[in-house]
């Protein structure tokens, strides 16, 4: 790990060198075609899931438990993303997913108990999340400028 201090080089050159190292690492021909089918499959899967859930829930009375199931699912997706992805930006999106899952549960319980304070707490969660994300993004940008990478596995300087 290089720790010498160097002035921030202009961003252009940095990104360029980074891209080249990645393209070198894997054949460019293999990069392009693999991307779109994956996204299509994910979209089709989500659509199928939505249809199944719609069929199961059709004509039922809404209960608090349904919303909490949704919140549970969202939280699981976020936690899974944090565990398997290594890009700092994607990690941030997954953390947001988990925060919003908690928000859904808050609002559902507030509606179930007829108490508006859940909504107020959700607003506080949003404000704190906004501050956290803004600071985090600024940190990611400055790390990216210095290191040329946003991979969290590369950041081991503070590891004992």
């Amino acid at each position, binding site marked *: 790990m290089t720790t010498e201090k160097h002035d921030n080089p202009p961003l252009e050159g940095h990104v360029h060198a980074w891209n080249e190292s990645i393209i070198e690492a894997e054949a460019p021909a293999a*990069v392009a075609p693999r991307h779109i089918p994956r996204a299509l499959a994910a979209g089709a899967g989500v659509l199928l899931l939505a249809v199944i859930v719609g069929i199961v829930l059709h004509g039922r009375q809404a209960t608090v438990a349904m919303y909490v199931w949704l919140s549970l699912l969202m939280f699981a997706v976020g936690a899974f993303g944090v565990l398997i992805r290594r890009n700092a930006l994607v990690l941030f999106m997954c953390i947001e997913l988990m925060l919003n899952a908690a928000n859904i549960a808050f609002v559902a319980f507030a509606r179930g108990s007829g108490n508006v304070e859940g909504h107020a707490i959700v607003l506080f969660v949003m404000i*704190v999340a906004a501050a956290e994300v803004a600071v985090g993004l600024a940190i990611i940008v*400055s790390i990216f400028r210095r290191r040329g990478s946003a991979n969290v596995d590369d950041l081991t300087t503070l590891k004992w």
Partner: protein
Amino acid sequence: MLLGVDRSEVVIERTPLQARQLVLGAISALILIGAAAPVLASKTLTTKLPSVPRTFGSAQTIGGVLFQTYLLPFELTGLLLLVATVGILMLAKRKPR
């Protein structure tokens, strides 16, 4: 730095899922569902939602709660946002050469 706009900037993480991870993930998902299912299937959560007044969740009632019950935390979040803004400016500033 718009992600994915330029084909040459497409970044693919190469961390394939291992069978061990999938097994561990399945086990923890089962534990989570098993722990949550009894609670979520209980009587209080599966009954019909209670009827609430029409103003429930309106901006007026939420604003009332925010500015009466939670006035101090509300002001503190304002301070938090200010601190965050100043911190971001310090972080994002380009250092003079």
